[in-house]
């Protein structure tokens, strides 16, 4: 407990030091004119651009973003699960020899931001959405691998323990006891990462993978506020859709 308090104090210290060293300008933020300025900026977004031709373009870009993020996430799930398994200490007596190296690999995969993965993939896969998909896949694999591994370590041990004492192979213990327990959490992490990837596909504009991201950067940079609003609406709708999906899936699993 005392070690925990030391840690808490350290965290508090870090927070205080951060705020102190940054010299943030709250005073400006709280004035009335500030609110007005923000309000004016937000007001510029209206009305959104709803010309059919532009809507078509946004629709296409939405599909491309959806495809890129979904496929990237799928790749990440496959890779992440494969890596999470050796990276988790599944029970108290688990020797888990690969744990440390695999964790380092996962750390590395996610230390490299999507953008850098994108530039790397771009070199090897050429310009286009495929590079973006791979980039999302690699980075997200590192993230999901770690989150999955921790979820597995956190799951109540009872069911797995019961099968293990029966001499069931680890991979099957995983299927029959761990999966049903961790499925909702893993699914929610996956869907949530998918959501994240929809946003991250925004940076993929640089690699010439179009999608909403590139359109957003383009129109936002040119202050086409109406168009930007339409694109933002499409992004909110996409994320909302995935959120809904995630909710339904969880409901179906946990009810």
């Amino acid at each position: 407990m005392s070690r925990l308090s030391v840690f808490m104090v350290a965290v508090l210290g870090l927070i205080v030091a951060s705020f102190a060293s940054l010299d943030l300008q709250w005073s400006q933020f709280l004035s009335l004119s500030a609110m007005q300025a923000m309000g004016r900026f937000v007001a510029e977004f209206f009305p959104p651009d709803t010309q059919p031709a532009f809507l078509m373009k946004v629709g296409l870009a939405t599909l491309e973003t959806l495809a890129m993020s979904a496929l990237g996430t799928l790749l990440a799930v496959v890779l992440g699960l494969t890596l999470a398994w050796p990276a988790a200490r599944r029970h108290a007596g688990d020797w888990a020899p690969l744990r440390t190296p695999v964790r380092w690999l996962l750390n590395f995969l996610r230390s490299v931001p999507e953008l850098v993965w994108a530039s790397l993939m771009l070199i090897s896969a050429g310009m286009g959405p495929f590079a973006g998909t791979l980039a999302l896949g690699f980075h997200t694999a590192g993230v999901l691998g770690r989150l999955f591994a921790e979820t597995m370590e956190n799951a109540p041990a009872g069911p797995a323990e019961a099968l293990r004492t029966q001499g069931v192979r680890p991979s099957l213990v995983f299927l029959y006891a761990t999966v049903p327990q961790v499925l909702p959490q893993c699914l929610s992490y996956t869907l949530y990462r998918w959501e994240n990837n929809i946003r991250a596909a925004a940076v993929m504009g640089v690699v010439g993978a179009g999608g909403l991201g590139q359109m957003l950067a383009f129109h936002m940079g040119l202050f086409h506020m109406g168009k930007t609003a339409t694109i933002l609406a499409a992004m909110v709708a996409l994320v909302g859709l995935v959120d809904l999906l995630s909710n339904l899936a969880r409901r179906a699993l946990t009810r």
Partner: protein
Amino acid sequence: MSLSDQAQSLSQPALKDPAWLGRVGVALFMVVLLWPALVLTEFRPWQLWDARSWAVTANFLASTWPPRLDAPFLWELARETWRTVAMATAGITLGWLLAVPLTLVSTRVLSVSALSGRMAGGAWLLRQGVRGLLVVLRSVPELVWALVFVRVVGLGPTAGVLAIALTYGGMLGKVYGEILESGDTQPAESLLRNGSSRLQALLYALLPQNAAELVSYTVYRWECAVRSSVVLGFVGAGGLGQQLDSAMKMFAGGDVLTILLVFVALVALADRASAWLRETLA
């Protein structure tokens, strides 16, 4: 059908799994959905084995060695690292302050009215409203938020920190809620049923089970904030992300490697902290 009839039909040799058809259907549906995604993303993995692209990749990777280690660069990197860490910490702290109340409002297990199976109308509306707010907060990219704030607070870290706070508030709010809901909810329900309040149920039933998960997710998010400091550069707040971005654009391999090493070190540090916290809280 009487119970014994049912038993009769069940004990017949041709026992059928009622869920099987549905599962096959869902699997097929997934495959059908996958196809257009493969087309749209121009999924052609064999391109990767093309000799020319191998050569280019190898070239770039070779150019990253040796990492750039001259003193001024390292010194600047150290300064940028602290700035990044400070901004990430400040952003996460504000985001956390935003997320916690929203989580409390939107978590279903903590809903008193949901105890009876269905949530009451008002509570349901409020919950949907908060969830919608969380969706908007996290689906609008940091850049857009940053531009909103630049108008008010000018160039510098404030706009970036606020942008991070809003997006990450949206993310934390959602994920906290899902973590709380996906564990064993019995203890919390039991407390609520006996008349405890929401906060009491959170403290006495949900936190002991989920503290480790919540903490490690928060640490992970901090790590993400460090990485996403590239957006901070947009509004003139500097940061490691921006350095990496420009080094990458310039194909300055040595710089890229050094900065990546810093990232790996920060991430490993966060990982250690998270692992340690999990052990301590478990």
